[in-house]
């Protein structure tokens, strides 16, 4: 026969302080667990959303990032004329040769010492169609041939002089900010975009950094890759755009995840020890009660189950508490340098339902583990000794 749940609820109510302490402790562990994974999640999301499977990205052979790559004008015109490039509605190729530049900018509100390397991407007019999910939220797209730039939404939040109508100074010249854009939460939103032809003389660049184009047939990527990489005039590596940006997030994403698991597993062990101790004390204090339960004819298994449920219950309360604690960070924007591309990347904490669920499961596991040995001991108590 099962011991009714109300027995556990009432016992928990008997010791409100110690229950609350344990629950809060477990809650904090769950909060840190969810928070750190949300960070890794947000970072990966920002970079994996940057690329599209329908696009290909071309870099100079051996280059491992857009920064270290370089393509001369001849290579760019060969690429643009390739039959693997899809034509746009106006018949011109959906092809964007881009200059990837990094400029130091001071963050908003901070002292001038805290600089970040912001990506300035010189693009072709077609880039706004080639790249994925680009939406201009304010203002008009820069007119080719003018000193105009468009600023990503998260970049605009973090740096001064980025409002539409203001002038942003870099490369020794003022650039009119004419629009803001979003890109589905991708890392493009941390960038400044302008006309590549305008940037080249200012930054004294002869050619471009990379090229991005819409595949004429997305299923024929391997074919395009083979053809372009085999072209002796080019000396390039061709990547599927989505895969390339996902790989750029690999190192930092993995560091964040390892850190999340390392920190939370150490914390969890501490919290489980705490739960074990609390439950031991609870069992010890209730020795006579347990004896009465056993005398009344409850099976030791029921006693074991009852204490396990009680421990899990406390942990679940903790889990819910942890969720409440961590929910406010959802969507909070933070930034760091992605050392793989040496550029500032802003991203937000992304708490998903799956993450919340794993937090609750984590709490329940901590509670059950923490309650097991004390419950075991409670169930196996010799009745006579306990009643004494």
């Amino acid at each position: 026969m099962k011991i009714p749940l109300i027995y556990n609820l009432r016992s928990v109510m008997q010791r409100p302080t110690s229950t609350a302490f344990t629950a809060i402790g477990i809650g904090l562990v769950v909060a840190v667990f969810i928070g750190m994974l949300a960070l890794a999640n947000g970072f990966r999301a920002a970079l994996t959303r940057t690329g599209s499977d329908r696009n290909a990205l071309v870099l100079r052979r051996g280059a491992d990032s857009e920064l270290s790559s370089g393509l001369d004008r001849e290579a760019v015109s060969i690429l643009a004329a390739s039959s693997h490039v899809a034509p746009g509605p106006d018949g011109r190729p959906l092809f964007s040769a881009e200059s990837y530049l990094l400029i130091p900018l001071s963050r908003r509100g901070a002292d001038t010492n805290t600089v970040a390397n912001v990506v300035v991407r010189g693009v072709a007019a077609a880039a706004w169609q080639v790249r994925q999910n680009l939406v201009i939220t304010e203002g008009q797209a820069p007119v080719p041939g003018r000193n105009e730039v468009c600023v990503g939404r998260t970049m605009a939040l973090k740096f001064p002089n980025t409002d539409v109508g203001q002038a942003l100074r870099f490369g020794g010249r003022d650039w009119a900010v004419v629009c803001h854009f979003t890109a589905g939460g991708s890392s493009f939103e941390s960038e400044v975009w302008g006309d590549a032809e305008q940037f080249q003389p200012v930054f004294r660049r002869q050619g471009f950094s990379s090229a991005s184009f819409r595949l004429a047939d997305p299923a024929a990527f391997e074919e395009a890759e083979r053809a372009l990489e085999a072209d002796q005039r080019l000396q390039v590596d061709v990547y599927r755009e989505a895969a390339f940006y996902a790989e750029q997030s690999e190192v930092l994403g993995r560091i964040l995840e390892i850190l999340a698991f390392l920190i939370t597993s150490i914390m969890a062990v501490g919290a489980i020890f705490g739960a074990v101790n609390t439950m031991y004390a609870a069992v010890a204090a209730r020795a006579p009660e347990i004896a009465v339960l056993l005398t009344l004819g409850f099976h030791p298994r029921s006693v074991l189950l009852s204490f396990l449920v009680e421990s899990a219950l406390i942990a679940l309360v903790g889990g819910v508490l942890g969720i409440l604690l961590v929910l406010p960070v959802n969507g909070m924007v933070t930034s760091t340098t992605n050392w793989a591309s040496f550029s500032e990347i802003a991203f937000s904490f992304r708490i998903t339902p799956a993450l919340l669920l794993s937090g609750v499961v984590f709490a329940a596991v901590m509670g059950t583990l923490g309650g097991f040995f004390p419950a075991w001991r409670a169930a196996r108590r010799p009745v006579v000794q306990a009643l004494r």
Partner: protein
Amino acid sequence: MKYFHLVLANLGRHKRRTLLTIASVALALFLFASLRTVVTTLAAAAQFGSARRLVSTNATGIVFPLPLSYANKLQATPGVEAVSWANWFGGRYGDNKRFFAQFAVDPASYLEMYPEIALPEDQKQAFIRERSSAIIGRRLVDIFGWKLGQDVTIQGTIYPGDWTFTIRGIYTPTDAVINDDMMLFQHEYLEERTGRPGQAGWYVLRIDDGDKSASIAKGIDDQFRNSNAATKTGTEQAFNASFATMWGNVSLLMGTIGMAVVFAILLVTANAMMMSARERTREVAVLKTIGFTDRTLFGLVMLEAGLIAGIGAVLGLGGAKLLYKSTNFNAGGFLPGFDVTTSTLAIGAGVTLLLMLASGLVPAVRAARLPVVQALRRVE
């Protein structure tokens, strides 16, 4: 301490519980020390820099080079004693599982500029003499098992192709903040192979008077203001700090998590300690009856709490210190000089004291104030 034995006996009564409590204190402080060391290491990197060294970079941004022809003009600038330059190479070795930095430097002037990069005189001379030679940090020997005289091939990402260097020296940094996993090779070799006119990633200058750094820096920047590539000159410390700030909110994040960890585990631990003390109400009553004073009992309970917290602290803080020291941890080259500082240990000790008070004070006061008659009534 004639009652020390009594305290030990009390601790030994619930051995498993005592051990668990000590272990969770130790874990909390271990994590705290680790996270705070990330913060202090980043801060130390931002602070590092000789007052007498300046760094000149391209004003447009660190990724843009400066002409090598600036070297003579910089050398001739009043107040400048010595000039050297370096380039980021950005190569990959093997499968690139373990990244390390390679720099193209002007050997003689660079080693003279950085006495912190210490290596035997004959190795130094070999590096200066031989065009395709390189020197490596001690750690790379441990990681890859490279030996003196060995040829090592690096794939260039910025400078395409395979680059083979002969290792002619192994350096040991005298300051822990300097990476011990760099590879330095000759700048001239880079120019020779690329066939491009000389460009420097940045210049390092030694000045005669650290107090005049601001005016000397301004003089240099004014000199190049209207040239092809304007410069931005600042102290070495500011240069290093600008890299440290690129981490963004990482320090804040680590600090916050560290606090949450400490708070969570201490809460749970203090709770467990208080609960175990509460069980002993009857014993306290008995002890009082046989003549223990209130003050002694207060002291005994506090001592017990202090012992648990103290042993946990020694294990946690000492463990962190020893672990990072003995494994020579540097987070894959990202955090050189990763070492638990004295200030971290001191704060850890403060947290321990707090834990002792939080977990011991309530039961200790209760024990001291316990009315004997009432308590004894509960003893069968």
